[in-house]
Each structure stands twice: as C-alpha cells, then as structure tokens.
C-alpha cells in the first residue's frame, strides 16, 4: 500500500498517493494546471514550462525538526522564490500549491507568448484547429497581443511527410517532444528525434521508410498542436463538425475501444461517412492507444466493391434478384437438409450472428464450423481469462508467456501491454523460432525449431514455476490448424500443472486469434476443421476458404448448393449458387468477445449500402421460411437468448456492457491538453465472460509432423496483409509490403535466389504467385517464412517450389 499524502491546491485539500506529481494531483481534484509536454502516460520532462505554479512547503525548525506554526496555530508555509513546474514536482505532506496567483497567471501568459513567437497563423486550415490544446490554452491563459516583431516569425517547412501516414508541419511544432517520448517510452520504436538546436529544433524521423512504426497515429492524438496530422484525415473536416459514435475495432482479437468520427458529406453523395477512427479510453484494454491498422484500415466498409443486393446463379451467371426470391430458393434447398448442411462461419461475425446461424443450422439438423487457420479454442474457453483480469495489473511476481506469436504483427496492443507489464517487473517469457520485437523486453527468450513447439514445454515448466499470476499467449506462427490446437493443449496443460486457476483474475490462456470474434465463436460452441467436401449443402458466412485453400474450391464445385454471405464478392462467393449481401460491423450493432474474453458492444456508425442486411437478420429470415423461430431485426433481441443458453454469458445484459467507471488518467474531450484528443469512455467498458465450470478437458491432439523437404514454408502473420479489410484503405496502400518469402541467406543461395528478387512461389503444388525474396539471417535455416493473406495460399507448414524463370528479375 502506497503512502497517502495530503496537500492543498488552490485552497482545495487533496489526498493522493505519494510520488504523484502536482499536475496529476490537481487533475484528480478537478483543478486545471495547463500543460503541453506532460502526458499522464509518460515520464515528465518539464520542457514546455506551461505548468509553472507557486509551491510552498511547511517550515520546520532546523534544530528540533518540529513544524513552525503561525500565530493562529496553522503550519507556516514557505514559498520558493521562483515558480516550479507542477509536472515534475512530486507532492509532499502539507504542500501548498497556488495556481491562481497573479504571478502564475503572468508566467503562463509569458510562456504562451514565447510559444507563439513563431507559430503560424494556420488555425483556419489546420486539422487540429478546434481541438488544439495550444488554441484552447491561449484562449484561456494567453496574451491577446504579442510583443514580438511579426516580421521576425520563423518560416519553416510545412507539410513534411514524416512517413506515409503522418505529416509534420515544422512551423507549428512547439518542441514538447511528446511524439518522440511516445515512440521511445511507450511504443518502443525510437524512430523520431530532435535535430538542430534552438529555434531551429526539428522533429525528424531516422527510420527508412520514414516513421516506420505501427503506432504513428497516436502521436497525432497527443501532439498538443497541429504539427503532426494524419494523411487520412488531412482536411477531412473541422473537428467541431464531426459526430462521434462508439465502436470496437474489428481487425484483431484485442478489441480496442474506438470512437468513429462521422460527417454527412456532399462528396460522398450526401451520406454519413466515417472521417476518422480515434481511440476510446479503456484502461483494461487499449488505454489511450490504438495501432495504425485500427486507425486507418476502416475504409473497407465504404468500398465500391461491396455487395449491395442478393445474387442468384441463373444460366451460370450470378444475377441480381430481390431478397424474397433468394430466400425462397435457399429455403427450398435447405428444407429437410439434415446432415448434408454445413454452415461455415468466419471469426469476424458478432456473437448475435453466430448464435442465430448456429440455431438455424442445428434446427435444420446440419453442422456448424468455424473457418480459422488457428485452433485450440476449446482450451481457451476452459482456461481463458475471467472477471477482474487486466493486463495492466500484471507486475512483479507475475509471469507472462508468449509462444509462437509475433505479437506486434498479430495483436499490436497486446505487445504494448506486455511490454509495459515487463517494465513493471513481470517476468516475460517469449518463445519463438525467430527473434520478434517483444523479445527486447523479455526476461527469458526460448528458441525452438518450427515443428518442435511441444518439446520446450518441460523447460517452460521450470520457467513459469512460482508465478503469482500466469498468463499464456499462444499464436499460430509456423502452425496450421492442427498444430496450433496441439500447442494450445500443451499450454493448457502447462497452465494447469503449474497450479494455476483461471477463476483467479489475470490467470489464463489467451489465443492470438486471426479475427476479432474468434473467441466468441469458441465460446458459443463452434469447432474448427470441418471437411467442406463432406457436405452437399454449404452455407458460408463471412469466410473465404477458397482464397486460403484450393481444396475448398473443389468442395464448393462438388456441392449441390452453396450460399455465401459476405461483404464482397470474394473468391468463394464467385463460386456460389446464391450470394447474400451482409452488413459491415460499422453499419450495425452487436457484441464481440476479445481474446481476453471481454465481451464488448459496438454501435451502428453509418447507414448500410443498398439492400444489405445484418447476418443475424438474414439467418432469421431464412429461419422464418423454414419455420425455425429466430430473432431478427435487433441484436438486442438475440442477446438475451445467448445469455440464457450459453453458461459463459449467463447474467449479462447490454446494460451491463454499457457500464463505465472513472478511469485514471481522467481523459475527456473537454481538456485535451492533458490526455490528448482521445475520447473518454461513456459507452461501456465491457464485461468479462464467466469463467468456465470444471468441464472435461478435451484430450490433447497429437501434433502433426512437418512435411518432408529440405526447406519448409511456414506461415507467419503480418499486420498489413493484403486482405480486403486492409487493402481497401487507400491511405495504407504505400505501407503494404509486397508478398514475400523470407529466407536465411544460406537457404536463398541454395534456391539460387537473391535478396530483392521477384520469383514465382507455389506452395504445396498450388497456384504460382509472384513474391519478393527477402534474405534475413534471423530466419532459422531450413525454413521459409511466407505471410498469410498476401496472395499466397498457405495455411500450414508446407512444401514449396520456387520458379525463377517465370518472372523476370526485379
């Protein structure tokens, strides 16, 4: 328990833990002490001097150590001769802070006058104008006139691209170093730094390509001026014109809380469109940050290629029809379907949709399956995190293990959270066949060879012994469905055998799933690994098995009847008999379960295009034709059914998901100088699912053997893949890497390829795709890394063939 200290700020008594700086203490008491460089998530530096206050401390008699009292018995306070920076001075007992005196007001005025000496008159065209701390604080504390000579303003470069995503305006920068410190301290990518000195001080990027970080967007949130702005929102709208709506990020299993800013636009045909994605504070999930994928990849929903009406195959062509015709046809085929029906769903579907699809399919006697390249959900359902868990609480004595995952590429916010846990003293064990970025912060690094994952568990058992709390993250690097399931089983075994219980907060397994709601699918009882070829009626929802696996195309062609329900005319949809247009996550409401088993609700942001309908509603409409009663229209009608039937959801309601409690740091949009322009959370922090009761643990499957080959291709995940949900964002285009094969230089030599060469790659005898050869000594010999969802169908370790002749040398 930390010691509490009581002090007086502007006549108000405040009690805060010892070690708190004055700015934070004032914030807790609801008193404004303006800052530019200080940010509650970063170490104070005292660079901007905006927070100057008068600080007085009780006097003590030097001889006796007794407090000296005034005549009226109150302690005598001695004020320092000069002002002190409230962001660097920790509180002490009996301290008196004065922020309202004339001396302090004059200091603030002078500091602002200095900061504005060379600040351009850009507010009308600045993207920050309207939500700018410098603007706000100048209005509140600044001078109305400057004594500096107008013609002596510095004119520096404007509109400097720091990277593809972030622009710097050198004139506007006030050198607070928030961006540099964020990259250093929080993101761990020290790609920004100061250059030159004095009035010429510049922020520059030292990486190639510029600002090479997955966190760059956050610097625009915390920049207290308009020096850093995003390419995405550039001149998009003025901040006061935007409306906001709460959502959950749909790109990875972390479930970051977002606020989408929307505006009705003439150039978008008078429709309401999303103008930008902003982080919404949830200290238990994403704090104040989101990764660049979450911030910039939301454009897929507004793509022109979206399906807008039902299509039915007539004379070999997919022809637009109305809903009733499509549904009637589906109903006639699905009636008496029985075991012939297989419903395959994707992990990006919300719980309500998954539930309705499962009810529909099981009502018809068919089977449901989850389409995923990563298995092991059975174990996470049993041993996942439960109520009270917060990765932000992990610290000394706790152990976090990450195995077979490059967290920064797969679930960036977890990388950030685990990095911080390690910095707080938690023991971080990273096990991967090749070095990953998280290893920099790891207490222990374990190396193994691809395919040998299970052999290290004896060793790991000793490493996790004695941990107060144990969280195990497992991924699918270099593993297919069966391999990752075996890995999950081993992790579960390690978790249980080391004496941990998932009913205790911060104990459990976390799967680094490929999709936002894969965990929800496991919780609702979906299983993976269905054989498409065994079913003659296929109902494929939000999944594109054909692009990952050539066998799926064959299965669809052999099936009697295939219905595909998706946002786009995917490769799978192109083969279907009926294609139904679904709604994107931002167009409807629902709930997701994050990898940490946190149930979170999202809200409709924009109107849906054309005749699209949400997936749960389509399932209900098919059900209606087949006399299976399902709730359509509103997810709020489906959710109580889930809670009644699925034990993990027992007792939950939408109201509970919308509950909030005060979070530290106190961030809301009224005082952007403190926490940046991130949104506070008034729409719900989410709730953990119930810990599973002691159910039977599925027997551990045997790990599949690696294929026989000199060099084996193994799948890895990259953040910016070429899936439609990423590639549809124009702003991310320059950041997308070419499809690649990453090889050890010795292996590259064996294959007669060189770094930077473009070759044809065929995995497992599949189609040939052009890829870039990257030589990387960090890749273990005998293995070639091939990224998933980049145009090369790879879903498990496989043999491959390089064809040099087919493509020209790059």
């Amino acid at each position, binding site marked *: 328990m930390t010691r509490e200290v009581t002090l007086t700020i502007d006549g108000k008594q405040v009690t805060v833990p010892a070690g708190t700086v004055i700015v934070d203490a004032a914030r807790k008491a609801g008193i404004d002490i303006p800052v530019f460089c200080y940010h509650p998530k970063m170490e104070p530096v005292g660079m901007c001097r905006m927070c100057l206050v008068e600080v007085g401390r009780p006097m003590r008699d030097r001889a006796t150590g007794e407090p000296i009292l005034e005549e009226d018995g109150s302690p005598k306070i001695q004020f320092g001769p000069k002002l002190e920076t409230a962001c660097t001075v920790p509180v002490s007992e009996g301290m008196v802070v004065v922020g309202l005196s004339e001396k302090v007001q004059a200091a603030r005025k002078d500091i602002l006058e200095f900061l504005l000496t060379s600040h351009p008159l*850009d507010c*009308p065209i600045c993207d920050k104008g309207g939500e700018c701390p410098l603007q706000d604080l100048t209005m509140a504390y600044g001078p109305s006139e400057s004594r500096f000579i107008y013609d002596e303003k510095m004119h520096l470069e*404007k509109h400097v691209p720091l990277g593809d995503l972030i622009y710097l305006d050198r004139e506007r920068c006030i050198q607070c170093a928030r961006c540099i410190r964020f990259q250093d301290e929080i993101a761990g990518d020290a790609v920004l730094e100061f250059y030159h000195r004095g009035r010429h001080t510049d922020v520059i990027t030292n990486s190639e390509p510029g600002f090479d970080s997955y966190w760059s967007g956050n610097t625009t949130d915390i920049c207290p001026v308009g020096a850093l702005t995003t390419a995405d929102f550039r*001149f998009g709208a003025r901040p006061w*014109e935007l409306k906001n709506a709460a959502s959950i990020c749909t790109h990875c299993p972390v479930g970051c809380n977002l606020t989408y800013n929307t505006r009705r*636009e003439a150039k978008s045909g008078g429709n309401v469109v999303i103008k930008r994605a902003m982080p919404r504070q949830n200290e238990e999930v994403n704090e104040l940050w989101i990764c660049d994928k979450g911030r910039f990849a939301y454009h897929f929903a507004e793509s022109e290629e979206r399906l807008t009406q039902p299509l039915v195959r007539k004379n070999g062509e997919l022809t637009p029809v109305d809903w009733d015709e499509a549904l009637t046809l589906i109903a006639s085929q699905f009636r008496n379907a029985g075991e012939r029906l297989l419903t395959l769903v994707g992990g990006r579907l919300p719980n309500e949709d998954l539930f309705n699809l499962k009810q529909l399919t099981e009502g018809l006697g068919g089977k449901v399956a989850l389409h995923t390249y990563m298995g092991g959900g059975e174990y996470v359902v049993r041993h996942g995190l439960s109520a009270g868990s917060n990765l932000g609480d992990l610290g000394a004595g706790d152990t976090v293990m990450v195995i077979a995952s490059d967290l920064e590429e797969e679930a960036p916010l977890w990388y950030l959270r685990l990095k911080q846990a390690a910095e707080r003293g938690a023991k971080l064990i990273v096990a991967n066949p090749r070095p990953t970025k998280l290893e920099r912060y790891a207490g222990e690094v374990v190396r193994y060879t691809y395919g040998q994952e299970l052999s290290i568990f004896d060793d790991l058992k000793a490493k996790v012994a004695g941990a107060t709390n144990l969280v195990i993250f497992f991924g699918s690097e270099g593993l297919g469905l069966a391999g990752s399931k075996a890995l999950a089983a081993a992790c579960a075994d390690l978790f249980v055998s080391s004496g941990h219980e998932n009913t205790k907060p911060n104990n459990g397994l976390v799967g680094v799933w490929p999709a936002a709601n894969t965990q929800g699918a496991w919780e609702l009882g979906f299983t993976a690994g269905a054989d498409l070829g065994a079913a003659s009626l296929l109902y494929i929802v939000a999944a594109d098995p054909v692009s990952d696996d050539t066998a799926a195309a064959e299965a669809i062609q052999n099936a009697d009847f295939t219905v595909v329900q998706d946002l786009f005319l995917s490769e799978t949809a192109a083969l279907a008999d009926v294609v139904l247009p679904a709604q994107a996550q931002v167009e409807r409401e629902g709930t997701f379960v994050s990898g940490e088993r946190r149930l979170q609700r999202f809200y409709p942001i924009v109107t849906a295009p054309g005749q699209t309908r949400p997936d749960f509603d389509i399932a209900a409409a098919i059900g209606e034709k087949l006399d299976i009663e399902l709730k359509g229209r509103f997810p709020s009608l489906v959710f109580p059914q889930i809670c009644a039937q699925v034990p993990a959801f027992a007792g939950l309601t939408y109201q509970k998901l919308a509950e909030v409690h005060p979070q530290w740091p106190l961030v809301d949009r009224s005082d952007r100088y403190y926490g940046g322009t991130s949104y506070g959370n008034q729409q719900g922090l989410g709730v953990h699912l119930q810990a599973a009761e002691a159910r039977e643990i599925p027997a551990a499957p045997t790990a599949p053997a690696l294929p026989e080959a000199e060099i084996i291709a193994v799948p890895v995940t990259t953040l910016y893949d070429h899936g439609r949900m990423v590639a549809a964002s124009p702003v991310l285009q320059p950041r997308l890497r070419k499809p690649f094969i990453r090889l050890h230089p010795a292996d590259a030599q064996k294959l007669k390829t060189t770094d930077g060469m473009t070759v044809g790659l065929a995995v497992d005898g599949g189609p040939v795709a052009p890829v870039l050869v990257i030589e990387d000594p960090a890749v273990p010999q005998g293995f070639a890394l091939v990224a998933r969802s980049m145009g090369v169908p790879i879903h498990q370790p496989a043999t491959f063939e390089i064809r040099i002749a087919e493509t020209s040398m790059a």
Partner: protein
Amino acid sequence: MALPERAQVQEILRGMWITFRSMFEKPVTIQYPEVKRRIHTRFRGRHVLNRYENGLEKCIGCSLCAAACPADAIFVESAENTDEERYSPGERYASTYEINMLRCIFCGYCEDACPTQAITLEDNYELSFTSRRDAIYTKERLLVPVPEGGKPTPQKVEPGVFTRAVPEMADPTD
C-alpha cells in the same frame, strides 16, 4: 338632403389642394426593375466568393463561416491544393461550398469570421428561385468572375510560390 356644411367643404378643398400640389412634385416611385435604388455601403445582400487579382480563390475551405453561421446555412468541404492544380494559395481549398439562401438570415457573421475576406455580402438582393434546389447556391454560382489579367482556377503554378493560406499581412497589431 342637407347642403354640406362650410367646414366640410373646406376639408374637401384642402384635400384637393394636396392632390393638385403633388402633381408638380418629383415622384418617389422607382421603376423597378429598370431603375434600382441606391444600395447603402453596409448593405448585406447575397454573398460572393472573392478572388485574388491573379484569379486564385480567396476561400481556403476553413469552414469558419459555417461554424459562425447561426442559421446553419453554409456547408463547406475542403481538399488539398497542389501546384499542378491550384485553387487557392496555401494547402487547402474549398472543394464544395454551398449556401442555402432559404436559411440565410443575412447577418454577415460569415463575413466576420472569414480569415481571408473570401466571403463578402454584396449588393445583390434579387434572390428569387422556383425550387428549393435552386435556393442552394453552389461554389460556381458564388464565385466572382475571374478578374482581368487573372486566370481561372485550377491553375498550374510555379512550385513554392503560393505557400501561405492566410495572406502575409502587415504587423497585425495596428
């Protein structure tokens, strides 16, 4: 029927005299629309979007007029200038600019808010339209003609010349 009283006759004659007198006065009627009344200096008529002498638009698409508008009559969308296609000096220009004249109350706040004096309320008060759509004045209708010697927008310009959105001004302290 009684004869009118003397006082009544007097009143009739007085009235007739006024009529007779006014026959020789200058008429106040103006032959609108052939003849128009003088416009006062501070009259607030229909808005125009002004141009610089070289033809570039003064409007930089900052939306401050829309923010100041008490009737929410103005709608602005902005986009980025390039030296290949330059509409206004600086980085930003208005790609869409619309004023709904049915909503406008001609208060002139937009003019006050404008940092570049791009929007001004001019003399035109002849605002009649036959449909609601016509009441929405688009940027094309609001922009003044290109001045003599200027070029229409977008212009292809030398790089590095028009870098400032808000024009360089003399020391603003005066």
